[in-house]
């Protein structure tokens, strides 16, 4: 418990330093765009591949679990949309990105720590945490909702493909189900959630990397810790957000 509180305190101190006033905005602007490309656009491929199969599987699973003849088949489209928007796109994508981006952030910053690059920044009078971590957090928080929107469309498109390629549901029924009782609030809720998750899967691995010490082996361990911790925190926070905003 003492260790947990110690790390929690250290994490908040790091975040405080990270969000302090930058030395030169122009430097941060360039880094922000670089990070948006590296964290966002480079993740587009994996997001699309996972989303299309995710949507396809939700559609098949829903169809396979509807036994009653009294449940209309358009429910498949409705369930695919709801599952995708409320949970799969924001949460599963956050977990995927925690693995991909989180490990990348922890190892990049950790390597900079053990090769004294962070010390070099500090000696030049640069707030190293703000310079290294802030653009990553801001880029991920800004770009993540867009990735989730893309994931939603592609996932629902994956379900559409199943409707088109199989006879478990007609395209018309699937489309009807997808449009049925649509609530914009759910999309807003989902995108807000994705921004919170983005903050978690960038800041937690950044913390682990920033305080890495010793050898490349330690950097690897820090990277693993960053991914595991951010994944767990995402799931816990997801529970609370759902409880607060949907019930």
């Amino acid at each position, binding site marked *: 418990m003492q260790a947990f509180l110690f790390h929690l305190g250290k994490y908040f101190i790091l975040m405080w330093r990270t969000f302090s006033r930058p*030395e*030169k905005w*122009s*430097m941060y602007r360039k880094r922000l765009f670089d990070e948006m490309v590296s964290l966002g656009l480079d993740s587009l491929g994996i997001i699309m591949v996972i989303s299309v199969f995710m949507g396809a599987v939700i559609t098949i699973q829903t169809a396979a679990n509807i036994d009653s003849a009294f449940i209309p088949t358009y429910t498949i489209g409705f369930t695919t949309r709801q599952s995708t928007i409320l949970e799969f796109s924001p949460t599963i994508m956050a977990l995927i990105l925690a693995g991909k981006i989180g490990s990348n952030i922890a190892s990049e910053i950790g*390597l*900079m720590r053990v*090769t*004294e*690059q962070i*010390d*070099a920044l*500090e*000696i*030049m*009078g*640069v707030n190293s945490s703000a310079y290294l971590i802030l653009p990553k957090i801001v880029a991920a928080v800004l770009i993540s909702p867009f990735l989730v929107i893309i994931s939603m469309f592609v996932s629902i498109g994956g379900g559409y493909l199943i409707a088109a390629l199989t006879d478990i549901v007609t395209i018309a029924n699937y489309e009807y189900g997808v449009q049925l009782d649509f609530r914009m609030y759910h999309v807003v809720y989902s995108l807000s959630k994705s921004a919170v998750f983005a903050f978690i899967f960038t800041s937690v691995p950044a913390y682990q990397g920033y305080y890495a010490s010793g050898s490349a082996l330690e950097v690897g361990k820090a990277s693993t810790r960053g991914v595991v911790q951010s994944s767990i925190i995402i799931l816990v926070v997801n529970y609370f957000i759902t409880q607060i905003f949907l019930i």
Partner: protein
Amino acid sequence: MIEVNHLSKTFGEKHVLKDINVRFEAGVTNLIIGASGSGKSTLARCLVGLVEPEKGEVLYDGRDFVHMKNKERKAVRKEMGFLFQGSALFDYMTVEENVRFPLDILTSLSSKEKQMRVDQVLERVEMPDVHKLYPSELSGGMKKRVGIARAISPNPKYLFCDEPNSGLDPQTSIVIDGLIREITRENNITTLVITHDMNSVMEIGDFIMFIYKGEKWWEGTNKEMMETDNQEILEFVNAAGMMTRKQQ
């Protein structure tokens, strides 16, 4: 000039630096030497503020760096250049971007002026054609030269070099040592070199401070060092493979 008064540092129970008093003059290469674990790197880190000492003061031309506020420290840090043991070049930047980085951070020069300065310092370290290369494409010696170029690009008043010859062949070490000495004299800067390389001591040791188990054990020039009968220094020199006149 850098003056260190009564500097002490402990890590837990361990006394790493014990009441260090020393003065490093400008225009000469000042060497801090000692065995591994003697506290020389910690001393350097205390001097630049990467480690906070428990006691004592570090005066940069009379300005007490230890007891300054952060804002004032930043102003002094702008006058420092640091060459790290592993060069610490930023992996994601080209050589040119690495050298320009301190200029972007610390100066308000125009783009053209920055480019001129980058070209000038890369020329100075005899690396005129590597602007677009990344650190991973450079050899150890080349990285050190670029590290020096980055350290001197904002015209520092104080230059710190941590083990500048570690991992380099003897020939390249001589070149790097020569470069550090020339730059020190040309610009009249206060240079501190942390090393345990006896060749560097002989080549560029204008002023040497020998640190032993966290204490300042001895100070003098390289010539005086060869004359001394201090047992710890003789052991250090002997371990470095040097046969001094006294030992013979």
